[in-house]
């Protein structure tokens, strides 16, 4: 899931302004692969453990003295404004924990802050990322 021009972004009630992009990656943490006796090809595959990783890139225009810290937990809200063809906007919501906070100070660009989070599921059988119409 990728949002290139997100609207408002808030984590644990704190607004994260000038957000350039929000990326939500899903990948297998553990994969089951099984073969059978009667041939070389895989006959069963399943993914019993999934990691939902969220990467948020913000442009930083001034000193950043109170960034989030790894292990901080909260509700992440991302509002996507309505496009020309949509009837309304969408809100992406999930509970997440901060995994890392990094800065990029390449001289030719505005400074950026990249925050990586890992989504938490209240129900382990359900996708932790909820998309709502607003």
């Amino acid at each position: 899931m990728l949002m290139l021009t997100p609207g408002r972004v808030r984590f644990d009630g704190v607004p994260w302004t000038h957000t350039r992009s929000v990326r939500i990656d899903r990948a297998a943490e553990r994969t089951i692969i099984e073969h059978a006796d009667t041939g070389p090809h895989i006959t069963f595959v399943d993914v019993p453990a999934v990691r939902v990783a969220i990467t948020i890139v913000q442009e930083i225009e001034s000193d950043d003295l109170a960034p989030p810290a790894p292990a901080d937990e909260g509700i992440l809200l991302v509002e996507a404004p309505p496009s020309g063809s949509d009837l309304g906007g969408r809100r992406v919501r999930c509970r997440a924990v901060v995994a890392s906070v990094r800065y990029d100070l390449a001289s030719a660009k505005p400074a950026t802050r990249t925050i990586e989070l890992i989504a938490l599921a209240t129900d382990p059988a359900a996708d932790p990322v909820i998309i709502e119409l607003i």
Partner: protein
Amino acid sequence: MTSTWRGLNLFGSGPHRFRIARQGQSLVPNFVLGLPGAGSQAQGLVELDIFVEGRLVSATSSGLWTLRDAIVAEVTDPVTAATLIDNAGREWTNMALVGFAESGPADRGRLWSVAYAAQFRRFA
């Protein structure tokens, strides 16, 4: 074709493979028998052990328990000997289901599954 034991399809819900354990003489070191010197004594042929190793698979948790319970219910005392047939149709007669061990916790991905090893033995 699917494997069976006693005519029952116990393992067919998921992939499984047959492994034949060591065959040959039971060897006992001399010092264990109180005999002098290095070396060993042959005590006779070991009993045939065949392991079925695979994964039970179900769409539901309760369905997976049904599959596990069905196998455990066949581990009886006294043992029941019957014909074991593998996925290619190879047969072994007089095999008793003597053990069932799960290799880890059940997994819940797209489906419910658990890895296992079932042990069969042909008693002498």
